């Protein structure tokens, strides 16, 4: 699947959880979900559920730990879609 498309879709998924809209305007792959985008750590599990539903994949606990940045999350999604 096209990486650009997944980045765009992931941004749509995380937008409601980002408290300040300006942070979304300046988003790039290097941004950390919690530290840079100020997403409440409790909401990471909600983002994971939204991603699972969107792509019909399963993200296990180990994989969640590797989704720190936007880029890492996109890689994780692409890997799971392939397997």
């Amino acid at each position, binding site marked *: 699947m096209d990486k650009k498309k997944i980045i765009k879709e992931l941004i749509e998924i995380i*937008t*409601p*959880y980002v*408290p300040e809209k300006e942070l979304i305007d300046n988003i790039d792959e290097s941004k950390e979900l919690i530290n840079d985008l100020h997403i409440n750590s*409790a*909401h*990471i*599990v*909600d983002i994971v*559920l939204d991603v699972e539903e969107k792509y019909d994949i399963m993200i296990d606990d180990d994989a969640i730990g590797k989704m720190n940045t936007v880029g890492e999350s996109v890689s994780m999604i692409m890997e799971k879609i392939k397997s």
Partner: protein
Amino acid sequence: MKENRVVITGIGAVTPNALGAKEFNNALQQGKSGIQYWEELTRLNFRCQIGGVPPLTDEYIDSLLPEYFSKKITNKAIIYSCLSGIEAWLDAGFGMGSDTRDPESGIVFGAGDLGFDSLRNSQEYYSYYVDRGEPRKLGSRTISEAMNSGAAAYLNNLLGLGNRVISNSSACTTGSESIFLGYEHLKAGKAKRMICGSTEGDGRYIWGAFDAMRVLCADSNENPAIGSRPMSDTSSGFVPGGGSGALVLETLDSALERGVKIYAEILGGELNSGGQRNGGSLTAPNSEAVVECIEHAVEQAKISPSEIDLISGHLTSTKGDPIEIENWSKALGLSGDDFPLVNSVKSMIGHCIGGVGSIELVACLLQMENEFIHPSLNTQSIHPEILKLIPNKKIPQKSIKKEVKTVIKANFGFGDLNCCLVLRKWEA
């Protein structure tokens, strides 16, 4: 110790016939019923297939709350509470989005139950995920949306208030109790202002259990607007509803210092229980305690019953209504032509369970501010026991233009709980 005088400086409401206090005012004046037929309830074999559901839209949610609420929050009771709470807070002249904690303000926000609510966007009750072996799908929000303190917690997430943040729950007394608890706290000088209110969700999960008790109206499925008919000789059970009301209570000193609009002063009130004795039970009030509650509220308020312009009753459209009128008459020592006008908001919106008391108090303030008394719908034929005590004309069938200075309001709840408040219009 100096006791503070306590006034109301902001109001907000989400009800089955209105979104926001302004719309609610129009609906009350017009006597607009918010009760509708719900096909789903027929399909699910409910006896009562009508109810009051606020006409919520994403546009309205987004106009007052961050996008997160319309997109992600599924518990309607939480959304209602944040809408009415923020509306009241803004109405009182405060802003949103401050980064600093405000230790002089607090919250008392109750609900009958936040866990019963059906989810807003889904067809399923959340615990079914657990039963299917998929607990991980509950996500992070199930606890915060179902915990009894969820309404206050989400509201304060937006406001950052640092005084007491309490979540009360006392069945149908919850709403007036939240205001009473905030009033006592301010009177004692422990805060400058409190957002007080209550909320209840709506839908098959909470209504099903009432339907099973056979306390809901089952004879008006074809004609929803006449289902809720408090004080009528054909009252056959209450019509369930959902919604939320909120008031900003403030010490008089603080309100005068800020120079803001004051709706009314809370002159006094009382909160008690009938102990589930002497006729009181888990579901019915002990009349002795009801009378005592009203008498004490009047005493505390230091008014004479003859000063009362309006009784905003609990009056649910059940066989308890004639007993309630008898209790009012006994407690106030008034009957016949001396009895004040009396109406029931529930005739328009049904019984919004824990949310109803605060919604009805918002209705009282709107009637004071706009000088009218709203009609009590479906009262063409009053119960004969009521007519033995008061004449027909004391129950308005149409909106009456009238100055309303002093209102007394009570609610009674399962567990034999009573709350009564006396309000007086503020005249600067």
